[in-house]
Structures are given as C-alpha cells and as structure tokens.
C-alpha cells in the first residue's frame, strides 16, 4: 500500500520534472540580472498574502524564539533539524555525482544520531566531517545546462514563499524521498511532521530576521528586491557545489579585524 503510494508519487514527480526541465532554460531574460517572472501579478498577490501571515504570525514567533529561547536550545534544535535533513542531503549529493561527500553525510548522520544523542550535538564536525546541505532544486540546477540564475519562471508559493519552477519541483522531490516523512506516515505519527515543520519555520525565520528586515527597510519595491536576492542566493548555492560550508573556504588570513553588525 505504502509502496504503491510511493511509486505513484515518484511517477508524478518524474512527470513534473519533465515539465520543469522544459521550462528551465526556455526563457530569454530582457536585461542582465533581471529575473524571468511571467506570473508577476499572481506572484505579487501571493507575496502580499505571505507577507501578512509573516507579519502577524511567523515573524513574532521567530523573534520570540530568538530572544527567549536559550542559545544552547536553539543550537540543539538546529542540529536536530539538520540531522533529520541529512538523508535527503546524502541523496542529493549522490545525484550530483558527489559520492565521497554523500558517504560523509551518511557517516555524519550515523555518528550524530548515536553519539550525538539523536542529533542534538554535532560531534561529527569535530571528527572532520563538516555539515553540508543540498536539496533537489540545487541538484536540478547542477544537472541543467542553463546558468543557475535561470530556474524557470519565478514563483511565490503559498507559505513557502520565493521559489521558481526548478526549486518548487525540488521541494516536491525532497518531500517524496524523505525517509522520515515515509516512516512517520507508515507508523501513523504524522503529527511529528507538523512539529518538525513548525520548528523548521521558526528556526529558519529567526536566522533571516536581520537580512529580511534590512531588505524591506532599504528597498523601494520589496517584492523585486526579494525576487532578485532569492535568485542570486540560489544561483550561488548551486555554483559553490563542492564547497562544504562557508567556514571551510580557504582563507589565507591576510589580516583580521573585528566588525560589528546590528543583530
């Protein structure tokens, strides 16, 4: 029963993939750096709706989470969520032809799930296995012959926010292959998925508070600024495939200076 559901899900994914594949790279951008946005009117509508929900629900929640939860708890939560995401990352690294890193991710998962007490502590990092994160949108970007700035038509998804054809398909595929989702469904503990989703949202939003507030305050057209920033950020993530994390970048320390940023 579950297998059939999975197979039909996979078939659906392949079908959507084919459509997305034909969309990615099938566009001509008018001006360098401008994002292809044929659905701008409905996108702006969805953006406004998401913005309202964010202002009244998600943002206050994220601020509370950031300011009132002990830093150790926040780090532990982030580690647990990252750990639950490792199988999907391993899958995508394999799909991108990064066999070694995929194996390292599996090793991280096994180490952190056991010695790291269900992923609360990232002990694998100390063993020379730094965290990585790859999603299927990035995998499609690696596969595509188009430049990573071109992810097909820009989309604003309900709740999930900025996306494009490539990354929306990516979200769906990551959802389908996620072993924890499959297991939760199998053992009838679906509610755990909602708990995880809620925590993901609070954690992710709490870490983008400063950046998003800054963009909103300093832009004259918030929608366009976000559209551009999202597209560039995703393109950079796809380009730096193979670079583990920012902390792993080769740095010949020419000089060190402290710099303060508004929190």
């Amino acid at each position, binding site marked *: 029963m579950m297998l059939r559901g999975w197979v039909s899900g996979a078939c659906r994914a392949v079908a959507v993939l084919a459509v997305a594949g034909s969309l990615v790279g099938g566009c001509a951008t008018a001006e360098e750096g401008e994002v292809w946005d044929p659905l701008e009117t409905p996108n702006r509508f969805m953006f406004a709706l998401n913005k309202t929900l964010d202002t009244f629900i998600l943002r206050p929640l994220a601020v509370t989470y950031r300011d009132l939860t002990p830093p150790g708890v926040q780090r532990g939560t982030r580690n647990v969520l990252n750990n639950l995401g490792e199988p999907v990352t391993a899958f995508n690294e394999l799909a991108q032809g990064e066999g070694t890193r995929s194996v390292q991710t599996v090793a991280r998962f096994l180490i952190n799930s056991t010695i790291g007490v269900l992923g609360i502590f990232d002990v694998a990092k100390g063993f020379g296995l730094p965290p990585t994160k790859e999603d299927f949108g990035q995998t499609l970007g690696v596969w595509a012959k188009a430049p990573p700035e071109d992810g097909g038509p820009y989309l604003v998804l309900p709740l999930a926010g900025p996306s494009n054809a490539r990354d929306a398909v990516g979200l769906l595929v990551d959802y389908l292959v996620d072993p924890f989702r499959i297991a939760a469904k199998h053992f009838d503990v679906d509610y755990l998925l909602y708990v995880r989703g809620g925590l993901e949202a609070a954690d992710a939003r709490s870490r983008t508070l400063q950046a998003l507030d800054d963009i909103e305050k300093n832009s004259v057209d918030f929608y*366009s600024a976000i559209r551009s920033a999202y597209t560039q950020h995703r393109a950079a993530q796809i*380009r730096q495939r193979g670079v583990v994390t920012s902390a792993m970048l080769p740095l010949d320390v020419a*000089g060190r200076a402290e710099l*303060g940023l508004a*929190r």
Partner: protein
Amino acid sequence: MSIPTLSRRLVLGAACSLIAGAGVVMPAAADDAAALINTIANRLLTMLKSGVSDADREREMSAILRQSFDLQAIGRTVLGRHWNGATPEQRQRFLTAFERAEVRAYSGRFREYSGQSLVVGKVTQQAPKELVSSQIVQPNGGPAIRLTWEVVNGKIVDVTIEGVSMAITRRSDFNSYIQRNGLDALITELERRASS
C-alpha cells in the same frame, strides 16, 4: 652644527621619498585591495566599541562610504538602462539622493555590536576588478557569513553577501519602481527617505 642637521634632514627626506616612490611602483594592488577592506573594518570597530551617538555614527559612516566606495559608479550601475534616458539634472539629483539613502542604510546596519569579526581572505584578480573575499565570523559559533568586495581603482563598487550582490538587487528594486512610477518618483522617494 647646522650643516650636519641639514644634511641629516636631507638624507631623511630622500629616504622618505624613496619609500614613497617604491610604494607607488610596487605592483601591490592585491594587498591594497585587502588593506582597504581591513582599514574599513578597523575604523568601524573603533567606532562601534567607543559607543558613539547616532549622529556621529552617521557622520563617520558617511565619511567611510564617500572615501572608500565609488558611489557615482554604483549609482550608474543601479540605475541600469534608465541612466542613459535620464537628463543631466535627473542624474545629479538621483546620485545625491542615492548617496544619502545609502549612508542612512549603512549606518542603520551598525547600530549594535555583538562581537562579530571580519576575516579578510584571498584577493582574486578579474581585471579591471579585484575581488576580496571575507567572512563575518559570529561570536556564538553560528555559521559564518561570506562577503565579497568588488574593488575597481582602489574603490569599492559592490558588496556580495552570501552570493547576493547589493548592486544587482538594488538595480532590480529600482528598475521595478521606475517601471511602475517613473524615475522622478524614485528620486523623490529617495530624497524623502534621506531626509526623514
């Protein structure tokens, strides 16, 4: 007695001009670009640690921006194709308003200091640009933020944060606003924000 002093001074002067001359001749452009970023970071840090008032911070920010950033070039870039269609008067008004808006934006970003540090890394030559890579390291061990500074002729023309170019984002932002409301409306809006 006065003669040796004079000669000593002459020797000293000659040595100084030699050193200064060597500084100009040496192809140390990459070091200069990295040094530029380090200087800015140090100036910011000194300011932040001294806990200055909002007005003083804005003045210092304004000085740093005008000295180290090529605001004219950035202004032209962010206006994109609308630059060519603008009258000289519109361009002048735009650049003035844009500068003031950027000063506002930057000084707002450095309101609180919570112990981050900037580590300046490699300089990549990409003529005529030099790309200075750096990282903001968080004091709580959180993920570092990658910053790339684009330097042309000893001045910063763009900052890229985690792959997001400030110039490209701003151009996209302005372009949409101009398409909907026109260039004059954008200039008026920037002027309004700068003086609010």
